[in-house]
C-alpha cells in the first residue's frame, strides 16, 4: 500500500509529460549522415544508448514501453530514439511513441533515404535489421546489438555500464 502515493505521483507526472508532448507535435530531429558521430560527441562522458526502431516492426513497437521503463530506471543513461521510417510514416511513429509513454523523449528520424550509409556509420555490418541499438559507454566504447532489450548481452551491458 505504501507504494501507492509515489506511484500515483509518478502517473500524474507521466500524464503531465504526455500532455505537454501532445500539445505540440513531437519534435523529430533529422538523422542525417554524420549524426552518429555528432551524437556520440554530444553525449561524451555519459553512457548513451541510440535506439533504432520502425512502425513496421512489431517487435520494436512491443518493446517501446520497456524503453520507457528503462529510461525511468536508469536516469544516468542518455537514451536517444531514431525512427527509421520514411516521412509518410511520421505521424504513425509519433502515435506509437506517445502510446508507449515516450512522447517526452529525445527523438530523431531518418532524414536521408540512402539508408545504407546511415547503417554503415553506426556499424559497417548493420544491414538495417531492427530493433537495433548502439550502446556507448562513458569512455566512448561502442557496442551494437540487433535484438530485444531482454537479450542477455544487452542486460549485461546495461548492468555494467549504466547501473
Amino acid at each position, binding site marked *: 500500500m505504501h507504494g501507492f502515493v509515489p506511484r500515483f505521483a509518478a502517473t500524474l507526472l507521466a500524464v503531465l509529460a504526455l500532455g505537454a508532448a501532445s500539445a505540440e507535435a513531437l519534435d523529430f530531429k*533529422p538523422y542525417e549522415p554524420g549524426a552518429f558521430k555528432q551524437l556520440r560527441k554530444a553525449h561524451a562522458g555519459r553512457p548513451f544508448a541510440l535506439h533504432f526502431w520502425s512502425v513496421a516492426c512489431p517487435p520494436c513497437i512491443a518493446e517501446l514501453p520497456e524503453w520507457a521503463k528503462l529510461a525511468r530506471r536508469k536516469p544516468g543513461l542518455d537514451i536517444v530514439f531514431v525512427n527509421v521510417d520514411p516521412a509518410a510514416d511520421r505521424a504513425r511513429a509519433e502515435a506509437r511513441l506517445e502510446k508507449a509513454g515516450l512522447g517526452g523523449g529525445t527523438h530523431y528520424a531518418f532524414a536521408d533515404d540512402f539508408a545504407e550509409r546511415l547503417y554503415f556509420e553506426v556499424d*559497417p555490418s548493420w544491414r538495417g535489421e531492427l530493433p537495433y541499438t548502439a550502446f556507448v559507454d562513458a569512455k566512448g566504447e561502442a557496442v551494437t546489438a540487433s535484438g530485444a532489450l531482454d537479450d542477455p548481452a544487452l542486460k549485461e551491458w546495461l548492468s555494467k555500464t549504466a547501473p
Partner: protein
Amino acid sequence: MKALAIALLALMLGPARAEEASPATGGHMGHMGAAAPPACSEPAPQCAATAEPAFARDGTLWLAYSVGDKVYAAPSKDEGKTFGPAVVAATATGGVVDANGEARPKIVALPDGALLVSYTARPEKSYDGTISLVRSTDGGKSFSSPQPLVDGNGQRFDVFLVSPKGRLYAAWLDKRDAAEAKKAGQDFAGSGVAVGWSDDGGKNFAGKKILMEHSCECCRVSAALGRDGLPVFAWRQVFENNLRDAYVAKLSADGATLEGGRVSRDEWATGCPHHGPSLAIDGAGAWHVAWFTNGKARKGLFYASSIDGGKSFTPPAPFGDEAHAPGHAAIAAVGKTLHRVWKEFDGTTTSILAQGSADGGKSWSAPSVVGATTQPSDHPLLLARKGVAYLSWLSREHGYRLTPLPRPAAAKAARVGTPAALAGK
C-alpha cells in the same frame, strides 16, 4: 522514489536537453517535415524507391512502382533503355503504400496478355496492410478498380507466379490468426504464410488460407516453380526461442499444405531482419536458396541447396565480401546456369555483385561488379527471358537498368573461386 521522479523529470525535459545535444542544428530542425522530401514526384521510375519488372510474352518489359499514393505501370520496348508513358494503375486510398526493398508493388504479365498489378497499403494507425489487385486487359492502357486479395486486413509481402498451365499462384504473409490470438489475449509469434490461386487471371482467388503459422512478419517471400508446376516458397520462419531462419516449402497438389524444411540453424534470435531469402529451382528440380543471417552460428550471406524437397540442405556456404556488408541477394536458375546477385556497401559506394554457376551451385565464377552507385538504390532482382538472365536494378543515380548477365563457361567456373575460397578472400 526520488530517482524515479528525477527520471520522469528528465523525460519531461528531454527535448530541451536534446537541443543542446543535437548534432544537426539549423533552420530545418524541429518540425514534423524534418525528414528529407522525396527527391522528385514525377511518375518516373527514378522517383520511386522500388521497381518490379516483368516480361510480357511480346517482349515488352513492364515495370511496377509507386510514387506517393500512385501505383504506376510503365512499358519498355527496348529492354528498359526507354519507357513509354507510365499509366496510373491505382491510387491507394488505404494509407501508405509499401514500397521498400522487401514489400513493394508487383506486376505479373499473364499468358493471355493481361497485366496484374498488386500493391499493399497500410492504414494510418496500424501496420496491418491490405493487398489490392488491379488488372489491365487492354495492354496497360487502363486498369480495373482495386480489389482486395483477401477481405479484411493483415496481409503484406505478396509474391506471384504463373504455372505452365496458366494458374496464377499468390503467397503472402497474413496476420489474421495473429490478430485472433491477440484478441483472445494469447501470445503469437510472427504472421502466417497464406497461399491462393486463380484460374481466371487474378479476378478470383481460391484457397487464401494460412497454411503455415509463425512466419517472420517483415521479410519478403520468394517463389519459384517446381518441375511439376507446383509453387515452392521461401520465407523467414520464427522457430523456438524467437530464432528466425529461412524455410522453404512446396504447396501440395491439393493446395492444403506446405511441405519442406528449415534451410539452416543460424541461431539468430531477432526482431525484424527486413531481409527475406531468395529461391530458385533448376531444371533438375533442385532447390537453391540464398539468405542473410546475423546469427550466433553464422553471420552474412549464405547459399544452400536441396535435392530432396527440403528434407535436407547442403551446408550453408558463405558468399560476398563480409567486410562490405553483403546483403539482399537474389538467385535464379536460367537454362543450365545459376545466377546470384547481391548488394555490398563500402561506406560510400553501393555495388551490385554477380556470380554464376554452371554446376548447380557447387562452384561459382569470380564475383563481378554489375552495378554501382553512391546514391540510394533498390534491392537487385533477377529476371529471365529466352535463356538470358538479367539484373533488374533501380537507383536514384542511374534510374532503372536491365543488365544482361554473362553465362559462366563450365570449365572456367569449375576452377574459379569456391564459396569457401571467396569467403576467405
